[in-house]
């Protein structure tokens, strides 16, 4: 079994996606062109070509291998919701002019005039908001949830951005296990609730938890913990 095969168990991903999106309000017809390639005729706006995959760990090389010989693709959809996606995947998507996301992202993109330029609304808000901050000079997406924030005349910080309504001890522990180094967890969801156990788990690991407003304020200061 090759490395690619181990990382991408997606033989039936195309059929699963095709069956589901056939029920989408803006989809007129769906054609499976290859096991991982789907053509969609939409009721409103132009046709869309989708590449489907199922991988728990995604990087640019893996997506490139999916796209080789696939022709022109508008959207690459990866089924596992908790997949770890390396930042170079998003760079490749920007370079090659396609969108990358999960199944929920695909459903939203099918409702947009240009699915190629679709950006998840949560991360679009996060990136735009940070790039407008006076202390921030560059933001780099390290992976699907971590950002490197480089600041004017202050040290850079790495944060894990979570959007869940409930921030639990498991989010903290699993975040550390999956993503490794970061200095704070930032809740981008304004309605997020942090459990007592989550706060304790974060304290034990010397990680701070901020809501979005607190995070923007903290960016003006030196971070003296977990360096």
């Amino acid at each position, binding site marked *: 079994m090759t490395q690619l095969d181990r990382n991408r168990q997606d033989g039936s991903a195309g059929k699963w996606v095709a069956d589901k999106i056939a029920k989408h309000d803006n989809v007129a017809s769906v054609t499976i062109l290859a096991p991982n390639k789907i053509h969609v005729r939409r009721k409103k706006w132009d046709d869309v070509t989708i590449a489907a995959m*199922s991988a728990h760990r995604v990087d640019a090389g893996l997506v490139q291998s999916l796209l080789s010989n696939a022709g022109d693709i508008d959207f690459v959809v990866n089924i596992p919701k908790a997949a770890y996606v390396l930042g170079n995947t998003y760079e490749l998507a920007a370079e090659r002019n396609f969108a990358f996301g999960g199944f929920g992202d695909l459903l939203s993109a099918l409702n947009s005039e240009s699915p190629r330029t679709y950006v998840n609304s949560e991360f679009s808000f996060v990136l735009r908001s940070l790039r407008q901050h006076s202390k921030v000079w560059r933001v780099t997406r390290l992976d699907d949830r971590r950002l490197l924030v480089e600041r004017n005349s202050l040290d850079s910080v790495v944060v894990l951005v979570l959007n869940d309504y*409930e921030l639990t001890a*498991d989010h903290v522990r*699993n975040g550390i296990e999956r993503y490794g180094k970061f200095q704070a967890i930032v809740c981008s969801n304004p309605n997020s609730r942090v459990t*007592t*156990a989550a706060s304790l788990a974060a304290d034990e690991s010397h990680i701070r938890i901020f809501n979005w407003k607190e995070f923007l304020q903290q960016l003006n200061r030196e971070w003296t913990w977990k360096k």
Partner: protein
Amino acid sequence: MEEVSLTLRELAKLLAAKAPTAEWYLFGSVVRRVPLPSDIDVVIVYSNISDAHELREGLRSYSESVPLHLLLLRHDEENELQFVRDQRAIRIFPEEVSKR
């Protein structure tokens, strides 16, 4: 919803030996019978850290085939949040025995 419940119940039975006190619930768009759900929302209430690890690993293969949104709540967190009640989550395992 019935098909999803059946599959998850089978998985819960298989994983019961590894996480014996885990309670599995479905919530969100599948329970609300949204015509095209973007994911399958599952909350599992567990006891120990090791349970959470076993449950996540046990669901790894299933999560390759569907967009599974897994929320793992320790019993004390569920008591604090009352998530199951607030979300009107439906218990799928252990099955509730009806009283006569």
